[in-house]
């Protein structure tokens, strides 16, 4: 009896590990592609009151689905679980403000060319009088949990990071004076400041934007150079060539990123 159970368990385990079918086949068979996206990162991916996820990255995901002639299925992910989901096969693709770092490249397949790039800057009240990154040393600085730039900023400038899970929580803490600045993507700071909300009238983005970090869509690592990876690379090139991302930035009210403009120029010429 015990032997049968053990054999069954071993068989089940073996089947699980062999089961990584080629993602393209899986998508065709299923008729849908499952994309991991953010649902708390306006305007890249956020909820509308009906519960639907919308945003710039969702438009990109829809474009991928259209090209594959498949239905689009969205799974909300957070920084802490998106790479695991991709490895486990729960999602086929990550389009979730994923920073392209060397360390992550050992785990998942980053598609080049990168589709977007964001730098690091801080949002701070004008009264704080920040001029230089070095001024952050030993001062309380708010941050989002799991953001890739937290570690770099901590190592270089030694602030005392106060981390929160969501953006509204951080902004609340900043306004209540729990920290002197908020380390964040420069594009999102731009959008916040230019929203015209009088609450932000006395705030600024005082530092020089640093560490332009490309963002990548990601496929499972073993398939990076297979048909699926190659297909996604072509899609990414096409986005830059046709100016799709420039267009979407306009649609979602994101300040044009120099990286995207440059990529558009470069690929248009090719």
């Amino acid at each position: 009896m015990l032997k049968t159970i053990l054999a069954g368990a071993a068989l089940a385990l073996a089947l699980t590990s062999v089961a990584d079918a080629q993602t393209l086949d899986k998508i065709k068979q299923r008729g849908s592609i499952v994309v991991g996206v953010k649902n708390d990162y306006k305007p890249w991916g956020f909820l509308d009151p009906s519960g639907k996820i919308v945003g710039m990255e969702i438009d990109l995901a829809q474009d991928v689905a259209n090209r594959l002639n498949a239905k689009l299925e969205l799974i909300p992910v957070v920084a802490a679980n998106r790479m695991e989901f991709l490895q486990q096969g729960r999602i086929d693709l990550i389009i979730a403000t994923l920073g392209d770092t060397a360390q992550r490249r050992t785990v998942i397949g980053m598609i080049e060319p990168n589709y977007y790039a964001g730098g690091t800057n801080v949002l701070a009240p004008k009264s704080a009088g920040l001029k230089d990154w070095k001024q952050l040393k030993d001062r309380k600085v708010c941050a989002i949990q799991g953001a890739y730039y937290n570690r770099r900023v901590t190592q270089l400038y030694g602030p005392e990071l106060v981390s929160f899970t969501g953006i509204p929580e951080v902004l609340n803490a900043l306004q209540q004076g729990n920290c002197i600045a908020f380390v964040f993507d420069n594009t999102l700071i731009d959008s916040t400041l230019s929203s015209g909300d009088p609450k932000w009238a006395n705030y600024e983005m005082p530092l020089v934007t640093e560490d332009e970090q490309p963002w990548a869509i990601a496929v499972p690592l073993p398939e990076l150079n297979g048909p699926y990876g190659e297909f996604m690379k072509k899609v990414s090139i096409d986005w830059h060539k046709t100016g799709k991302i420039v267009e979407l930035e306009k649609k979602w009210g994101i300040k044009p990123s120099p990286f995207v403009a440059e990529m558009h120029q470069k690929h248009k010429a090719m």
Partner: protein
Amino acid sequence: MRPPAGTTDLPVLLSPTAVLRQHDAGMGDPCRLLGPRTALFLVVAFSMAVAGAEAATAPAAPGVIASLWKWAPLIFQGFLFNLLVSVLAMAIGTAAGAILGLMQISLLPPVRRGSWVATQFFRNAPWLVLLFYCMLLLPFEVRLFGLVIPLPAWIKSVIGLSLPVMANVSEIVRGGVQSIPVGQWESAEALAFTRRQTLWMIILPQCVKRMTPPWMNLYAILTMATPLISIVGVQDGMTLTRAALSAENRTELLVPMYLMLLSWFFIYCYPIARWTIRLEQRFAVKG
């Protein structure tokens, strides 16, 4: 049947507990006394939060009530999902816990000891840690002989929450059985009932009454613990509230939005607590 303690009007010498009970009854039922007052408190707190937020709202932005109203249906769906998770986890936990609890009073030492260890382990482990273990250790789909059974995150979280419920139910069952006077066992034996018959026909029916209040308490605690699943990435009411706040990106909504979710939990759990107290009073055993 013995009349419920404290209701007799005969001029007898009452025990101190009965006197206290009568005194309480004179002061009014604690449930009834707390009901309107607590409800009033909730309403006042909610309106204060909304008023405060309204004052902080920029003139151009839509009002706080309007924003809450806009998101309420979506967040309410999430809240219903929390309830679904709580009901499922309770069902699984109760079924497993009842078995585990009966194993704890088994006459076979290995069974008794094994179930005791399992009960103590799951009863004294933090719920969130158990949840994390379930999320990480269970596969996202089980393949058995070509049959693919998907295990989405929310099912894993139901399993994760049912483990501590199981252990607590197990203790409730064990305690319930042990609270029945030994005379019941002895009388049953004298009447030639087997152990199984005694348990099923004499002991357990008496336990059910005693076990119901703590069981309901446990359910209320479980329901209030379900937002934990938002931490492991399940889209429940808490996650949706957070996502709604991100979409609005208005700090003045933080307090009212979370308070809205809190009130729903309160409105759901508070009657359970009141009902539990009432049952406890009704089933109260003297001494």
